[in-house]
């Protein structure tokens, strides 16, 4: 038995050594989550406008176009659950926070979380979806992220060059700017729809918390291309509008719906994301709208 155990450990030692090295490297590797959280926490006391939402908001709202100090904490596939958790986790450290822009898109009221991305909130933001336990994932990041993905993706991440959390697309990806991709994208979003009353309740409680601290929540819906908009389920859009208007009326907060703004193709990156030119335009408009509110206060 001794010989067996000795031989076994001798055999697996190189594997364990490689594993440990990779584990250290992947924990130390760069990621956009890491970058955003670092900026968010170090600049917390300066933040006056906080941007939340999914990739629509992450790519569309450029903080440098705002007069007030703005930070973009939106992220791809980020749901309202995490929007709320991210804000509340740092709210004590943001004494100057005046406005929170919450992006509510076509699918926002139908997504609780994205299972594949939950782990990143645990690793980088220390936020666990529904207090999920991550014992094994904490022991090994490689186990959680997958060995292949670790080697292929996570170890090779260079700096994302985000500016106050905002990441831009430089130009239009003409290969995907057509009706077919619009239809595909809508189908992709609808495939993950789940009916959960908790999402709206959660949003209402989030708004209440913000208001109780003297912060103004603003619901926004960002522009998408007509190739995308034409395939949206009209019933869902109607239901969304009813729901959002109900929330806004109940809480007396503004809702800025920009989804049907007719922007030229050159301002889009793809059918539902703006590029940096589009971001500049929409951010300027949002800044003006915020200034208007600010003046009236």
């Amino acid at each position: 038995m001794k010989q067996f155990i000795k031989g076994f450990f001798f055999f697996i030692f190189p594997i364990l050594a490689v594993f440990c090295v990779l584990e250290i490297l992947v924990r130390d590797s760069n990621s956009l989550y890491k970058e955003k959280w670092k900026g968010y926490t170090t600049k917390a006391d300066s933040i006056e406008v906080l941007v939340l939402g999914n990739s629509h908001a992450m790519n569309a709202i450029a903080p440098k176009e705002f007069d007030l100090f703005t930070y973009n904490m939106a992220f791809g596939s980020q749901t309202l659950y995490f929007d709320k958790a991210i804000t509340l986790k740092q709210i004590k450290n943001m004494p100057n926070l005046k406005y929170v822009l919450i992006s509510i898109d076509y699918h926002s009221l139908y997504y609780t979380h994205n299972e594949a991305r939950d782990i990143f909130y645990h690793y980088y933001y220390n936020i666990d979806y529904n207090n999920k336990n991550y014992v094994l994932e904490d022991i090994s990041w490689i186990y959680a992220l997958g060995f292949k993905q670790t080697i292929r993706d996570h170890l090779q991440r260079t700096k994302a060059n985000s500016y106050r959390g905002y990441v831009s697309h430089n130009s239009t990806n003409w290969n995907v700017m057509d009706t077919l991709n619009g239809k595909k994208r809508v189908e992709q979003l609808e495939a993950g729809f789940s009916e959960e009353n908790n999402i709206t309740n959660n949003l209402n409680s989030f708004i209440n918390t913000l208001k109780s601290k003297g912060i103004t929540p603003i619901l926004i819906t960002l522009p998408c291309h007509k190739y995308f908009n034409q395939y949206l389920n009209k019933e869902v859009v109607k239901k969304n509008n009813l729901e959002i208007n109900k929330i806004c009326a109940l809480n007396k907060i503004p809702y800025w719906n920009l989804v049907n703004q007719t922007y030229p193709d050159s301002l889009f990156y793809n059918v539902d994301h703006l590029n940096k030119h589009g971001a500049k335009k929409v951010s300027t408009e949002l800044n003006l709208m915020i200034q208007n509110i600010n003046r009236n206060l």
Partner: protein
Amino acid sequence: MLFNSIDFAIFLPIIFILYWFVANNNLKLQNLLITIASYVFYGWWDWRFLSLIIFSTLVDYSIGIALTKQQKLEKRKLLLWTSILVNLGFLGFFKYYNFFLDNFITAFSFFGQDIQASTLNIVLPVGISFYTFQTLSYSIDVYRRKLEPTKDFIAFSAFVCFFPQLVAGPIERATHLLPQFYNKRKFEYNKAVDGMRQILWGLFKKVVIADNCAQFANQIFNNSEDMNGSSLVLGALFFTFQIYGDFSGYSDIAIGTSRLFGFDLMQNFNFPYFSRDMAEFWRRWHISLSTWFRDYLYIPLGGSRGGTWIKIRNTFIIFIVSGFWHGANWTFIIWGALNAVYFLPIMLTNNNRNNLETVAQGKYLPSIKEFFSMFITFVLTVFAWIFFRANTIEHAVSYIKGFFSNTLINIPNIENLNKVLITIFLILIFLLIEWFGRIGKYGIEKLSISKPIRWGLYYFLILCIIYFQGEEQQFIYFQF
């Protein structure tokens, strides 16, 4: 609990340590530990069905004892039939109830009689086809007086639910496995190392070959209407390697795990895709099931003795029953019948025992004749697997029709062609290792290479398992 899961990776070392360090030198305690571990292993999937295993254990244990006390033939027969009815009753209910009901309704409506009956939403207990056959073998062998019935209930329970082979075999005979529970087990270094090696090879087959092939086989079979001819051929080939990698991989892990605990299980696969005729293929594919049917069905029916018609009848019975054992669907029955059609000419011309030795033994390459024999056997096998994999007979027929179009020479219209090429490359490596290791009991058992190269190969396999692992799929044979 799946063999290729983190749960099993934690479970196995714990049981191994308890078995050799805590329960060592105490046979009863070791057997008890195996029984408890096996119940945990099975209950991990669904604890409710543990009651079935325990009930089956109690019935066959009691019948075994009763058979020793009973000398009258009629009463002995009655006891045997009780065991058969209980075991096959469970199997029949859980696996075939809806199938028979559907077919009766269809048959009656064909004759203008409408029957109102609703099917039940029955969950098939994992491994029921395997442990049922294992316990049946015990009762039949005791009835035939080939085996002394056991009075050791713990040993018998451990034999019925032995976790490495509980849910997907090999289907062990009581005469082979049960006595191993009576004898003191001693830790043997060589046996344990061999077990680890076989587990590694099994994991490679399952995680790298089967799971990668599954991704494409599923994509192609599920969308066969939209696939061109070349994709359909690839789909059939991918399924051929998926089912082999999946099932033989499971068997390798089961056998290897058993060896870690000092047990020897029977070989279940013996390089079946290097067979030169269908008779050889069936001596090398799912050996524990084929020999079970041979001993408990084919021979009692008269085997190959008797006239030509008896031989034909018995061959069809055994292949069709074997097909039906795999699942309650006409596709499995056609698959069985097709194999009977392949096998019959060889048997009727007395050529079924021509290729008993390993192909091209002592040579690097097969002769041209051997190569063509292997190729034809392989093609026939691939063709039969289409029925096995298809959802319905109509699906299989339309799939086969798709071959015969001018799109057969087109580039396959499958998503992710790069990954398809990587998978084909991995299959080629796998076949190469199997070819050079074909004199052993599994691919890497007897590779005549020096230790550093052998270790290099092990590290390579581990790297493949980690890097090229496909999307996790449940073992195919769990559903049987």
